């Protein structure tokens, strides 16, 4: 995870399933030795109520709802600990029905100038068509979906937007590695074989899928991080160089 000179970068792990947010708290994490004592006592708690648990420590953010658990960090040096924490939480909740795991990397960076910023947006989404119908069109939000390189059901999603943090001329990009906890015999080989974009494949959450989630977090994590870095690195590089 060595992206060149970015302003902010982070990672998030999202697990879909059926959760009880009320049990999540810094104390609960401490009880299971998932965070330290000082970390737990100094945690910033936004809310812990039946529909939602939202709190953070120095490096870890936790956001749990009925249908998802989200753990994140915006400190790139803590990405491996983030994975450990996700594995740990799933290990202490073996009865939780789950269905999918998302491994996300996101980054904010500055482009060198307004000219390069606009050029970058035009490279990703050409304006020739739009300029015939609209005035001074710009890229507000771009999302690309692709097939997975392994044999898990799901997809890879990359989103690019103007940055809310880095101004002016900052860019935000996110790579979402969405893995449904089900193996497939093969991935689509052509666009014609890929499911329509609006189709969202789902599976019934089950506690029997926890070992698969742990397998994804153990075995897929390294290559997912490498691919995300490659995509994000290429975007950053492109936005700073002009061919």
């Amino acid at each position: 995870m060595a992206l060149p000179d970015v302003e902010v970068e982070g990672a998030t792990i999202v697990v879909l399933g059926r959760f009880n947010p009320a049990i999540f708290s810094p104390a609960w994490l401490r009880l299971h030795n998932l965070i330290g004592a000082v970390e737990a006592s100094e945690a910033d708690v936004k809310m812990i109520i039946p529909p939602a648990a939202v709190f953070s420590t120095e490096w870890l953010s936790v956001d749990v709802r009925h249908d998802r658990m989200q753990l994140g960090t915006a400190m790139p040096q803590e990405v491996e600990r983030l994975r450990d924490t996700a594995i740990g939480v799933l290990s202490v909740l073996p009865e939780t029905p789950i269905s999918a795991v998302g491994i996300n990397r996101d980054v904010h960076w500055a482009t060198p100038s307004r000219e390069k910023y606009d050029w970058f947006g035009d490279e990703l989404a050409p304006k020739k068509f739009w300029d015939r119908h609209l005035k001074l069109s710009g890229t507000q939000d771009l999302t690309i979906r692709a097939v997975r390189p392994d044999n898990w059901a799901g997809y890879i999603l990359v989103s690019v937007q103007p940055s809310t943090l880095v101004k002016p001329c900052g860019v935000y990009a996110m790579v979402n590695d969405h893995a449904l906890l089900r193996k497939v015999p093969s991935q689509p080989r052509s666009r014609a074989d890929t499911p329509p974009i609006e189709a969202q494949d789902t599976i019934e959450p089950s506690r029997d899928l926890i070992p698969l989630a742990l397998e994804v977090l153990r075995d897929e994590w390294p290559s997912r991080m490498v691919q995300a870095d490659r995509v994000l690195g290429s975007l950053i590089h492109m936005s700073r160089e002009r061919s």
Partner: protein
Amino acid sequence: MTNNVGPAPDEIELSVFGPGDGEAAAIHVGDGSWILVDSCLDAKTNEPASLDYLRSIGVEVGRDVSWLVATHAHDDHVKGLARLVKECRAAKIVVPEASSFEEFLGLSKLDGRLAFYSTRYTVYSEYRTMMNHLRGNQELTRIVRAQAGKELPLGASMRGDRVRIMCLAPSDAAVTMSRRALARLWTVASRSPGGQRVASRDPNTFCAAVVLHIGDIALLLGGDVLVGSANWGWRHIVGSFPYVRSIDGHKVPHHGSDSAYYATVWNDWLMETCISIVTPFRSSGIPDDEDIKNMKKHGVELWQTARSGAIKRPRDVIEAEGKLRSVTSGTVELAGGLMGQVRVRWRNGRVRVEKFGPAFQVA
């Protein structure tokens, strides 16, 4: 010098491998039949060193390896063991008695949860993988449990002489002590706060040692057996097996450390012409100068598979040292290194020693 010329059918061979953080041995007992003891990985190929070697000299490992002895479960003796078990399909597997106790089996299962965190630093993954493989293939009958006094018949060498493996350790007392220690480890593991491995080390009382008699040649492979006391370790072995003498080839126990050095073995058991081979354990800097002095004073020919001290560091290690300067004291070194091999061959009363890689004769 290359090492890919196999022994003649009537030649006895003892090869010991050690890169600095692992140990393995391969013994040719005659007629193309092999016995392997312990396992370590060659960092270059990431394969078990003994497997690499046997294949390089044309051995059909699935057919010609008849015994595999796993002396104990420490990291530096088991890396690649599960692979050896899988590839050496015809081999019987000798394991210490205590490794079949429920306490050990339970610990190895519990250790499996750590495999989600670290595939490199789990403790019992090789044993666990080995057992799962054997169980899955209904091959648990390949396992033979080692205990002092147990003899494992190997069949006839080409000269019609009987080839024998005798287990010298663990003793009954060592087995009992192992069991108690494993039970304590289980208690710790089942209540271990975050970050603990199941057990950093199982007890050395666990360890097996064997003596092989192949025709006129006797080989002593001491694993990591320690000096011990009257009822376990070398003290016990020497007292219990008075007829063991005339050792021609000797794999020095526990990397030559003073905790395993028992003078009686060196004085009374080893022949004057015995070739002793020690594998270093670089993480602990053994054998150190004192250890070498202890061994050399017996006048034996001593070989070492690699250096004990710091070795030349590649650039990435020096770079790592630079980056880690603020959190380390001293230097950053390679824990292992290049694979060294000492090969001893006996034939018609003559002995020949060869060294490969960083191996050397201790002056």
